[in-house]
């Protein structure tokens, strides 16, 4: 005898059908009634994209590379996200910031190329956790469907937030990070200013 793996298995019998069952029609009517009754029930689907389902604030969707409040890119291409990534979806190339580019890049090193392969990405959020510069965040946006595989490799043009269209990620900030940002003396919380005066900020 085979081992019973679940309790959902059913015993099959060769029972002979009654004349009523042989007619089939009552069973068909019964089935149609069930179908008809669903016309008056609440639909479980939504009309995406016109209608959006509510998502948790910490939903892990498309990534964003943040800028600081001066509009300089926070990412310094340290590679922590790429090494933390279990799907090996992130690649980057580093470059040195030149004089006069201080308003574009926060640190003396920056990512000249930063790519995430959205087909590889499993949206686990480990890159966000690994980031020491608060540069990469996952947002509640959904990665678009595409026709070509290459278009899923998102470069800096798609990942870095636009200066005039900033993306709010404050909901993803943990309590520890919020506390940490209140300490103005830490280099991490210092702001770059063109007049070389270091302002303290909480961003």
């Amino acid at each position, binding site marked *: 005898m085979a081992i019973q793996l679940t309790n959902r298995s059913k015993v099959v019998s060769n029972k002979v059908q009654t004349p009523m069952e042989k007619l089939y029609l009552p069973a068909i009517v019964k089935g149609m009634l069930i179908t008809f009754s669903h016309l008056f029930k609440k639909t479980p689907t939504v009309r995406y994209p016109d209608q959006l389902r509510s998502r948790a604030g910490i939903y892990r969707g498309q990534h964003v590379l943040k800028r600081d409040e001066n509009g300089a890119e926070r990412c*310094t291409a340290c590679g922590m996200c790429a090494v933390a990534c279990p799907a090996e979806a992130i690649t980057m190339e580093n470059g*040195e910031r030149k004089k006069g580019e201080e308003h574009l890049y926060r640190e003396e090193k920056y990512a000249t190329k930063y790519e995430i392969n959205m087909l590889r990405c499993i949206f686990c959020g480990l890159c966000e956790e690994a980031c020491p510069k608060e540069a990469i965040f996952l947002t509640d946006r959904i990665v678009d469907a595409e026709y070509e595989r290459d278009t899923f490799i998102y470069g800096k043009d798609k990942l870095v937030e636009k200066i005039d269209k900033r993306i709010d990620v404050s909901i993803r900030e943990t309590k520890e990070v919020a506390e940490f940002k209140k300490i103005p003396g830490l280099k991490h919380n210092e702001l770059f200013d063109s007049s070389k005066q270091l302002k303290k900020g909480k961003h």
Partner: protein
Amino acid sequence: MKVTIDGIEIDVPKGTTILQAARMIGPEVAPPTMCYYTKLKTSGGYCRTCIVKVTKGSTQNPNPMPKPVASCRTEVMDGMEVQNITSPEILEARKGVVEFLLINHPLDCPVCDQAGECKLQDLGYEHGSAKTRYEFKRREYDMIDIGDKIKLHMTRCILCYRCVKTCEQITDGRVHGVVHRGDAAEISTYIAKAIDNEFSGNVIDVCPVGALTDKTFRFKQRVWFTKPVDAHRSCTKCSGKTRVWLKGDEVLRVTARKDQWDEVEEFICNSCRYDHKQVSDWVIEGPSKISRQSVISQNHYEHLNELKLQVLKQQKALGFMPLDKRP
């Protein structure tokens, strides 16, 4: 001479230091070092990370030493008993030493090229505390170019003197040293005079932090995305045995080979280090052995076979039947 370190007894010749004796036992009990370097004479005694507790001076004088001692500068006595990792007092003291070393450190690891192979990073991770208590302004210096191949970040320097001793002993006519004293001390050259000796590039390898870095490798790639291979070429100036760091078919940098204590095996010349950046210049021997604990071994899969064998061995010992042999 018999010496006991952390309860492990070892026989060593006269004149051995506690540190060398501990290294003979193994990496578990060997104290960490930031300034001591086996191949450089008179190195050691500056950083104090290798401090140990001597609980019994010797057989003749069994009194303990009153304070923790620097193991790199203290010679063993017969019957000496030493505590390193078994002494909570020493671990606490070492935590303090790390805190002092990090007082003026800019903590710019995401930018620094040394990250991933930095001894100060390892030391901070293993012995330091996660938070800083320092509230004052850190020391600030401008970056200096020492010659056209070396970049000096004085902010990251811990004043270990290794580079000074390398120039003194490996090259002739050293042109750089430490000027000023105490808090104001810094590595400097005579009016930014370039180091142009054939072996001057070795200061990059001996530097335990990211103070002296290779300008030809500056911001090229994080070390853990490169692939280190042992390679050699025939060189008239040095042994030509080096470690070549590859990314695809590109040679990103060339360094000397390092042993398990992160010390250079053989010093290499500048022409090997800077001027031969083609794969065709080198005879590649095979992948370098990198510790599994190092971030550089991330995404390298050489160890998988080894691991598989270990698992099989353990399964066999436990009496498991391999999956493919089950009925």
